[in-house]
């Protein structure tokens, strides 16, 4: 049984060689172990209200620089005037490193066909009416929602809330989809924040 013997010895040789080389090569990743190269954390959402009459501006923000968990987020209460028309733009930031604040809004613009903002106002009826800015559309002519028009009426009740949702990889052509209804759109939630809203008489 020479062949068998040869086979056995070569098997042993292969094994013996492999024992010496069994430490796995660690990744050729430059990042030192333990560093959090966090994938794009969205920490801040900034709403800038521009009064269409006098062009005066006011901003409100949702800010959670340490991300989910840890310290609770700081959320501004929105105060806007009644019977006024506002152009509202939304900005999304990664401010987890205060020395290197990253603007994620431009990335949403780059991927605008896959993203859409929704605005759901829960205040007394007819106090506010939010609509997409007709110029804020993606390559397919669908709304993106980075820019919106908010018209306020005489409030029947002063206080309410407004919920702002950013959906990702949704179907913008789904039936029933509206600025305040994303239920049938599928996709995932990137942002879902709720502000207290007061319409000042």
């Amino acid at each position, binding site marked *: 049984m020479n062949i*068998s*013997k040869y086979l*056995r*010895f070569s*098997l*042993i040789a292969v*094994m*013996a060689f*492999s*024992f010496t080389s*069994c*430490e*796995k090569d*660690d*990744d050729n*990743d430059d*990042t030192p*172990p*333990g*560093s*959090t*190269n*966090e*994938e*794009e954390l*969205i*920490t*801040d*959402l900034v709403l800038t209200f521009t009064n269409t009459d006098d062009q005066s501006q006011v901003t409100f923000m*949702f800010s*959670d620089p340490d*991300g*989910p*968990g*840890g310290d*609770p*987020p700081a*959320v501004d209460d929105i105060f806007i005037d009644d019977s006024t028309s506002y152009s509202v733009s939304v900005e*999304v930031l990664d401010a987890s490193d205060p020395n290197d604040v990253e603007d*994620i809004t431009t*990335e*949403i613009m*780059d*991927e605008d066909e896959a*993203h859409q903002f929704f605005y759901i106002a829960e205040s007394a009826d007819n106090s506010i009416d939010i609509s997409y800015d007709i110029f804020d559309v993606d390559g397919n002519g669908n709304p993106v929602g980075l820019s919106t028009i908010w018209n306020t009426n005489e409030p029947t009740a002063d206080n309410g809330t407004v919920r702002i*949702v950013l959906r*990702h990889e949704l179907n913008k052509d789904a039936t029933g989809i509206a600025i305040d209804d994303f*239920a*049938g759109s*599928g996709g*995932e*939630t*990137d*942002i*879902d*924040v*709720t502000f207290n809203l007061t319409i000042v008489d």
Partner: protein
Amino acid sequence: MKPFIWIVSILMSLLGVDAVNAQDNCTIQIDGQVVDAESGEGLSFASVILQESSQGAYADSAGFFSLKGICVGDYTLRVTHIGCAPQKKVIRLSGDTTFVFSLNHDESILHEFVVVGEEEKELVLTKIGVREAQLESTTGLQLAEQALAIPGMRMQETGNTIAKPVFRGLQGNRLLVLNAGVRQEGQYWGSEHAPEIDPFLAQQVSVIEGVDALRYAPDAIGGLLLVEPADVFGSDSLSGSLTGMGATNGRGGALGGELMGRVSEKFPLYFRGQISSRKFGDMKTPDVFLVNTGAEELNYSYALGWKGDAWKAEVFYSNFNQRIGIYRYSHLGNLTDLYEVITGIRSNPDTTDFSYDINRPYQDIGHELFKGRVEVELDAENKIEAIYSRQFNSRKEFDVHVGINPSAEELARPQLDYALTTHLGELVWRNKVGALSRSVGVTGLFRENTFRGRNFMPNYRNSSFGAFALEQRNLGIWKLKYGIRYERYDADIFNPIGSEDDPLNLSFDGLSAALAAKKDLESGDLTLSAATFWRAPAVNELFASGLHHGVGAIEQGNSELLQERSYSLSATWRRVFGRTRVLATAYTNYIENYIFLNPNDIELTIRGAFPRFDYEQTDALYWGSDIQVDGQLNKGFAYLVTASLVWAQNVGTGDFFINIPAHQFALEFKKTWDDLNKIKQPWIALSGNYTMEQYRAPEVFPFESVFEAGSTSTLPSSFDFAAAPDGYFLLGARAGLRLGQTSFQLGVENMLNTTYRNYMNRFRYYMDEQGLNITLRIKHNF
């Protein structure tokens, strides 16, 4: 084994000599042992009958028997054992005598594999497991699935690609896994992390608890799952096997090969090499394909052994590589998304076509084990064993969420990347004088865990040193084994909790102790076991912080956690009634300072609301029973009935815990025919398996009122996101035969193509379980 039998036979003949003088007409005594012809192991509870006088006896659990008061004369001695072909021997008795009977296995019996450890004299507790022959019918499945034939063994799944063993309701940190004698070190904390072990490696899978686990670990609160490869010294000639498996569901299969032997007669160098691979595509429920549920695996291992006159040395190396797809629609944005999926507002586009592609989310897992072991026989009574092992475990998780517009670099790297290195050294001295045996040992373990990517768990280094002493002796009719173990655990926690220069130090220490007592009863035995174990809180329980994508929940560690301590009691009773064999276990496990994830709050993030689960401590009580009855109705027709019952309760609050397996009942019939020319041992089996609904489940999360109120005031003290699914019945069938050295098995699972959800699957919120699956398994031995 053979020399052992000789020694026993000689011993018994020597003992027999004493009685010779006292011989009268009817005072003859026959002593002996009934052993398995193939393995030489003692066969428990074999029956030995003298047909002419109807005198008889049952062998004890190690196969020894004794017949007394026999008259001089000619007799036919008939030896039977469940699972074996009976043997007859015509004898002429004129004085005390000794016999060893070797019985051949009759393949017609269903579950002769249940008790696997009678031969191991070091174990007092009955070692219950699954042997090679039975493992053949689950080839190609995950390890946890292979272990399911063990009474009390269940599994926790995450989708269909990740299965984690659960024993008597306990899992994860509390159920340790021993691979080739080495404590398996992986990221075993999350339920979506299965043991990183090649199931093809296992020749035997079994469970031990209590005193027998003390030698391996202080923290085997829920027991220890032993995965044992073939003994490297097992074959003097070149032998091996090739195994193949194919399945219709997932349109995949597995291949494995093993080769072992001894280099030459003059050269006592032994070797074993083994390789396996697995590839599956998307699984199918009765209705749809589940997107991204494929898996692929390539594993290999080898071992070398040298046998000297009074010593043995072996090295073992194994390498495990796996990529598993995670069901695409299990990754959700937030609580609203989960609510929409659970309530059916949103349906998942599952109707896509079958694919072998594995896309995000997926896991890339690697595991390496190197082990060296030396055993030296100092003299006939003393032995020393030294073991060193080193393990590397790498786990990379690729999320769906890679940012709004990821760069190529961001796309290439995992979002979560852990590397764990473990060194383990053990030194054990064993002493055996007659029925008294002792072992004393020291162990040292060193771990280093580092991460890259998403911050979930800090880096840490940890060491654990232990010393144990065990003793086994006979006390009257009881065979006792007891022991104690001291362990000290130290951990240094680095980034981001502490820093490399100034880590946070933690230390814990404690005693574990256990006692087992076994008593032979008429044609059976009874084993009682009591144990107390402890475990230090794991680093994730102390410091985890962040979002768990699979369930859309924030997990928050608790640095104030104390060590957990268990007090367990169990009783195992075995008995043979004619052609029926019964195995029944009752157990209770009281766990003080039981660490668990408790839902506490709804946390607001920029991605919306998420439930926050905090690690908390309470006292927990687990209790239950496992019952197994197997036997033969008539020749070639066997059955097996099993019941697995488990209860668990939060003693502090009276709440139920989540993910406790529901009661399960199974029945299997097997029919075997005689050999037909070249077709050996053809058989078919039909099995039914009923799993109850888990009625002891936490309340359902009140989505509506939480969304409405936007507050946390309405949260129950314990909740789950969906109600426990209904109970379900599954029908399966198997058939097999052997042609020469090749065996074939055909299996049909979920024959009725039943649509059901499994409470023990974390993805039960989103997906149904697998539908009909037909498998073919072929094994060729050479």
